[in-house]
């Protein structure tokens, strides 16, 4: 399965976890979207470092883009494949959802 498909599945799974699994519903909160806006800005910068310097390189067969590492276009945003943004969204949402969920558990056990 391509990185494109896997990343989209990751997002669907993370939203399902937030909405129904842990019932944290961060994706309906202003706090989370504002947090994500800040995080994605820094993600684009730091991921640009990792991909622009070719620290991480991607198999052209599994991404929308190809082996050409360009700043914009060809399925890339500041050198990184757009799939990385999708992957990042899932990772950040899962992290924040688990954090809020574990806080509720902590409170309930006191």
């Amino acid at each position, binding site marked *: 399965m391509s990185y494109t498909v896997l990343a989209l599945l990751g997002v669907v799974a993370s939203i399902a976890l937030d909405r129904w699994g842990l*019932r944290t519903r961060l994706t309906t909160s202003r706090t989370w979207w*504002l*947090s994500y806006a800040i995080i994605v800005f820094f993600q684009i910068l730091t991921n640009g470092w990792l991909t622009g310097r*070719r620290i991480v390189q991607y*198999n052209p067969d*599994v991404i929308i883009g190809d082996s050409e590492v360009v700043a914009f276009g060809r399925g890339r945003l500041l050198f990184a494949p757009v799939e990385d943004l999708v992957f990042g969204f899932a990772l950040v949402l899962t*992290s924040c959802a*688990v954090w809020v969920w574990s806080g509720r558990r902590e409170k309930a056990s006191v």
Partner: protein
Amino acid sequence: MSLERFAYLAMLVFCLGTTLPLIPAFGLELGRRWRRLLLTVVLAGTPFLIWDVLVTHAGHWWFDADQTLTWRIGGLPPEEILFFVVIPIVSVITFEGVRTVLRHGGIRATVRRDPVDGRER
């Protein structure tokens, strides 16, 4: 050893270096909740780390040997594993920072209660 070796590590240091100061700046008290933070890192990071290990083996992506530390764990450079520790941590700190600012940032009139944990958001 060339500085190039630390190129990936430098990115992780940058993430922590810019985010950790938010803890004292906003009085986040995350230090007292380190156990919960650890749980979050393990639960949220592990599935993504497993994904990473599998697709690295499948050849979805690879790492420049000159710009990462020399050893490998499960085929990954240590930085890539630390990535799944650092990113959950900086995400949570950012989230808590935003939550604190929204709560105390002078927009009290529009603050809503979180339906789940009862906290303002």
